[in-house]
């Protein structure tokens, strides 16, 4: 088997750690438990990540980049503003279904344990790839007259808070139907809430 590069190895560690963090929570997950899950010595794990906090920070950067990259593709596509909203909702729910640990990490680790991130991920630095693409989405939507001009965070909260909330309810098994069956009505709601009158 070909030897993995250090970067590839890091990603495979991160993938495993992600599962643990998002199911066990930040504080329950320890460097030894991560090492055990990967089948690696704790000492070796520290060769890749100098602390649990650094690993947690790299994970949020990794997830923000995945989400940012997906939204960037949508932003750069010729879709209308409404179609872009459909596409973002679809993409977000798809990731939540196929790689639930990513969104779970975002909601349950990153947003719920701000104290862990405050020294290495001030403000929005670690999620900048994702937030920047949403800024571009909103800015272009207002510029072309489709969306109503308003404060960025009011719009951001409405869009992402809604999606995050639905994924959370889904994770708690509260939703009576599958997540994707809500896609259309949710993107309609978002569009109607944000569109210019």
């Amino acid at each position, binding site marked *: 088997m070909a030897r993995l590069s250090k970067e590839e190895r890091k990603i495979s560690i991160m993938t495993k750690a992600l599962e643990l963090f998002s199911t066990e929570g930040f504080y329950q997950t320890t460097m030894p438990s991560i090492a055990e899950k990967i089948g690696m010595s704790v000492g070796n794990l520290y060769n890749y990540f100098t602390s649990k906090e650094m690993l947690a920070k790299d994970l949020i950067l990794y997830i923000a980049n995945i989400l940012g990259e997906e939204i960037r593709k949508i932003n750069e596509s010729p879709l209308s503003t409404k179609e872009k909203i459909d596409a973002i909702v679809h993409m977000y729910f798809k990731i939540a279904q196929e790689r639930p640990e990513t969104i779970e990490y975002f909601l349950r680790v990153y947003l719920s344990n701000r104290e862990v991130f405050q020294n290495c991920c001030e403000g929005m*630095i670690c999620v900048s*790839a994702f*937030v*920047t693409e949403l*800024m571009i989405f909103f*800015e272009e939507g207002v510029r072309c007259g489709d*969306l109503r001009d308003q*404060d960025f965070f009011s*719009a951001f909260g409405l869009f992402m808070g809604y999606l995050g909330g639905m994924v959370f309810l889904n994770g708690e098994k509260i939703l009576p139907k599958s997540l994707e069956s809500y896609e259309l009505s949710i993107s309609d709601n978002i569009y109607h809430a944000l569109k210019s009158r």
Partner: protein
Amino acid sequence: MPSNPAKLKIIWLQGITCNGNTHSFLNDPSLGRLLESVEFIHHPLLACTLNLSELVEHLPASDILIIEGSYKADFERAYRRMDSVLPALAAKAEHIVSLGSCASFGGIFKEADPERISGIVFDREKALGPLAEMMPKVITLSGCPVHPKWLTFVIDMIRAGKAISVDEFRRPKELYAYLVHNGCLRNEYFEWKVDSDRFGTKEGCLFYAQGCQAPFTHGSCNKILWNEVSSKTRSGTPCFGCTEPSFPKRELFSTKTYMSIPAEVPLGVPKRSYLALTGAAKSFHIKRLEERLIDDNA
């Protein structure tokens, strides 16, 4: 008094103007030195050889024809229409200086009659003015008004027989390759996104809350200081982009935003990079930049 043949012969003719460039020129502390080396065939205020009536009657040749003010074909000077005076004087001039944003692009007076008022070469961005064909001998000095040193620079270069490197609007690069943002004392506040929402503060950048246009305005206002001491942005007033063909814009003292994101980002900077960088900068709070520089109550 016999005229000195070594002196550059200059005609300063006004179109539709507020006299701002004339007055700005009189503020040049080195005006005395300049006047020793030039002869004004005509100038609206300074001693000169011909008065306005004589000028439009004789239409003499000149080394430099300076035009201040916007152009309108039927605007009259000493009862002669501009479309008969300007091309005739321009044809006989070695060099032409379009002085101020009105002469350069139409400027503020163009607002009164946008279809018929323009600059002498450019009508806003387009080379559709009456002297468009003479463009190679025109130097554009846009600004509202023009800094006196910018004009003396051009006169000195012409006297020295040196070529003046120019941009797409024929503005000297030496003066207009810079952005007004270059050299502003508030650059550090710009970097860290610390804004001031009032005029006249020593602290804070004026970009986000007050519509400062300097990051996309060409000019050396913060390099060659006004009255040799200051500039708009240094004294706490936003730049309103007076050197650009787009001047005057509306709502000068507010920043147009779309969902809180500035509609225009600094010249040449991709929007995505700008947003990523400002998002990062805003995440930090630099105490020193959030405090008063001089706190009287401390």
